[in-house]
């Protein structure tokens, strides 16, 4: 193999920055490799990848030192346009990468701009390679997240690049979509010899798909190792915010050596070691904790039907005759595929919209009888994109907005308390947009908490977070249960479902398919398949080994194997 990307002592400083973002980076990437670039926030991963196609230093005009050579071209002496035919880049917020109205125009855009007469053929081929040729005439706003991501990929593929960089492929699509994308990337890598570079946080994807791993820290690579060797350095990865996949943790919890890549491998290791779960029956099901007193309903929806007008003008019914009661103490995870009606149901429950038919009684108030601003005192709705909730120039003023506006005497004390609670006091005076992904989510939680709601509604609170941040958000949601009566979370994240929820409501095409405890959900294969859900690795491993009840977290798994399990369980 020959090197396609060579970086020799590359340093880069953004305009106006006080120190270098890349510091003397030396890195070689072989042609045909499948590289995962990992590292904490601010470690320079994205900047590193932008040197590959010359965006650094041609677009980001900062101070640049060292030599970066891509396919024999010195990036400093060539242009972004020249390099673009070698390196394709798919952004994390790929929706903004789509600039043309239709998929076909979008895919042909690059070749057309470079004046390639065969642009139509290139476009067609790229769409075929990704299996999206049937979408060619669609408008980009009609696409689902996964389809839009593939379109963005096809549009760089049409340039027939030798290297493709994908920034955080899992960030904005659901797990099923992310796996599909990785399968496509693997296919491009294997069948077409395209070098793939991904920026990735999720250990399970890295161990399953990558051939080699680059660990970045503080603007320089710590090491570049084959995937298997990298996976073995679990402790080091953990230190850089990349916890090992659950199956590796599971083996480590039992002091079993080995780094399994699949559930089957992990099960074989456990069986081979001859350990069997002991205290299984003592695992307490969180959902089984029946409340001491009869539960008070926080929100009741009866025979709810709602729909939207489509672009064509017809009424598309999104929810059909939903009956749902959320009781005090409930932690509900709302799951289901895209378009199942999760967000609509949440907006109705929070009183942002009123249903076309049926009624909703929120905290004793019929949502039709009060303005959405009044209902905001009873329910807090957290948007999926945190930046839509950052309305002011600092986190503190954002959190303060609602309590101060409602004339609460203790607004300032409340704000301090809430910020402290989500551990954002040191960042209180910064604009929310400048925080890391996990901090942004915690900031939105703080905004919601300060509203003092009975019901907390959160749309995908763990989407696009690295594992460590995701865990901290789940832990935070867990801790907050005492201040809010009930919480409903719409999510694709099965870890959140397993570790946090007491009740799972499965929606399918606007109807409630099931309303059950997480453990019951993960035990029902037919339901999982129908709702297109993938349980967390630890659940699958537990089922593979025939454990009953299945563990929902690594903690429960560990407890199931230790005699003292019942006491350790928190």
């Amino acid at each position: 193999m020959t090197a396609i990307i060579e970086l020799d002592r590359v340093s880069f400083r953004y305009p106006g920055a006080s120190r270098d973002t890349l510091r003397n980076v030396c890195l070689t990437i072989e042609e045909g490799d499948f590289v995962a670039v990992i590292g904490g926030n601010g470690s320079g991963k994205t900047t590193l990848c932008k040197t590959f196609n010359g965006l650094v230093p041609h677009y980001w005009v900062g101070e640049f030192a060292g030599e970066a050579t891509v396919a024999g071209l010195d990036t400093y002496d060539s242009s972004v346009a020249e390099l673009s035919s070698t390196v394709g880049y798919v952004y994390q917020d790929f929706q903004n990468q789509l600039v043309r109205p239709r998929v076909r125009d979008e895919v042909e855009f690059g070749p057309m701009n470079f004046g390639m007469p065969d642009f139509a053929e290139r476009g067609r081929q790229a769409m075929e390679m990704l299996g999206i040729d049937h979408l060619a005439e669609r408008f980009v706003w009609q696409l689902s997240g996964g389809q839009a991501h593939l379109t963005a990929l096809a549009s760089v593929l049409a340039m027939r690049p030798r290297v493709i960089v994908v920034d955080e492929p899992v960030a904005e699509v659901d797990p099923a979509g992310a796996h599909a994308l990785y399968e496509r990337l693997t296919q491009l890598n294997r069948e077409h010899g395209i070098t793939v570079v991904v920026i990735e946080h999720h250990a399970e994807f890295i161990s399953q798909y990558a051939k080699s791993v680059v660990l970045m820290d503080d603007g320089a690579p710590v090491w570049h190792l084959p995937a298997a060797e990298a996976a073995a350095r679990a402790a080091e990865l953990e230190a850089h915010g990349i916890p090992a996949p659950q199956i590796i943790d599971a083996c480590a919890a039992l002091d079993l050596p080995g780094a399994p890549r699949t559930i089957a491998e992990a099960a074989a290791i456990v069986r081979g070691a001859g350990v069997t779960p002991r205290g299984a029956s003592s695992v307490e099901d969180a959902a089984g904790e029946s409340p001491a007193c009869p539960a008070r309903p926080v929100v009741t929806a009866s025979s709810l039907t709602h729909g939207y007008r489509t672009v064509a003008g017809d009424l598309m019914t999104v929810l059909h005759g939903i009956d749902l009661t959320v009781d005090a103490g409930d932690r509900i995870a709302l799951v289901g595929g895209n378009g199942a009606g999760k967000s609509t149901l949440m907006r109705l429950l929070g009183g942002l919209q009123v249903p076309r038919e049926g009624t909703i009684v929120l905290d004793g108030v019929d949502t039709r009888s009060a303005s959405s601003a009044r209902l905001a005192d009873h329910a807090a709705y957290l948007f999926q994109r945190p930046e839509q909730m950052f309305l002011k120039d600092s986190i503190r003023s954002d959190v303060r907005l609602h309590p101060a506006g409602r004339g609460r005497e203790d607004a300032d004390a409340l704000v301090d308390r809430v910020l402290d609670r989500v551990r954002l006091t040191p960042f209180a005076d910064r604009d929310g947009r400048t925080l890391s992904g996990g901090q942004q989510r915690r900031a939105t939680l703080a905004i919601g908490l300060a509203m003092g709601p009975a019901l907390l509604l959160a749309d995908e609170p763990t989407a696009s977070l690295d594992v460590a941040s995701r865990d901290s958000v789940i832990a935070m949601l867990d801790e907050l249960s005492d201040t809010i009566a009930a919480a409903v979370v719409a999510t694709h994240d099965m870890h959140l479902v397993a570790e946090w929820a007491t009740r799972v409501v499965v929606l399918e095409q606007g109807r409630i398919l099931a309303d059950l405890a997480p453990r019951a959900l993960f035990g029902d294969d037919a339901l999982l398949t129908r709702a297109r859900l993938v349980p967390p690795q630890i659940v699958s491993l537990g089922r593979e080994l025939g454990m009953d009840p299945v563990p929902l977290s690594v903690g429960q798994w560990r407890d199931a194997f230790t005699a003292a399990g019942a006491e350790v369980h928190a």
Partner: protein
Amino acid sequence: MSRKTRDVLSVEWVKLELIRTAYATRGGLFAKMDARMVIGWYLMLAVAPWLTHSFATIIALFVITAVSAALARVGPLVLGLFLVGFVTDFLYAFLAAWMFGGDANTALALVEINLKLATVSLASIAAFVSLDPEKLSTGLLALGAPELLAFGVSYGYRMMPILFEEFGVVFTGLRLRSAPGARGFLGLRALWRWGTYAVQAFYPIFLNTAKSVRTTVESLETRGFTARQGRELRIARLSIGALDVTVVAVTLAAVIAAFAIGPWVMTG
């Protein structure tokens, strides 16, 4: 007070209307035509009213554009905004003439001007509103417009509904989280509050838009937008067909007829 879901005159409706307008999903006559011919058609009707002073001709021209707008299937939002403007302008004209002691002549003169303006405006609604932005942008390129402008058209049409929705979300957030208050005399307090929300909404909108524009422009850069070599390829896609020729010919005949009836009405 009882809230209900409204299908018109809501933020969601405006957004849908923008999408429908921008992408010509209603179909319509001009959506199928070559952009250059549509622009030519527009120029014809935009210039024609200024070449006459015959009231009959002007009314005839207005009728031609009104029929065209109907054939172009212009949506209710755009049409509604147009009608509001049209009616206000007429009232304004009468009022101005009356206030300063003008006679019927003055009023008639102002009506005529307004009718001419309305004709031009309606022609532009018919032509541009139903045109696919990609076609319009290519047509502009073919007519020698700077690439930046052609791109701006295509990008603007794509982003407008998204940006408007973003504005709606931010505005709702402000409304829900800010201090509630009384409506005040004639709802003036509420109006003032909404005005301040509209202004405050721009702080997050500026920053969020800046972030997404950065990705867009970076992506444009990597995909050769600034290489500027694709002009001919794009223009080569345009073709003038029988429909284009027919529409322009029929309109031309109608315009000539309108000019012909002018003197005839006056003398007859």
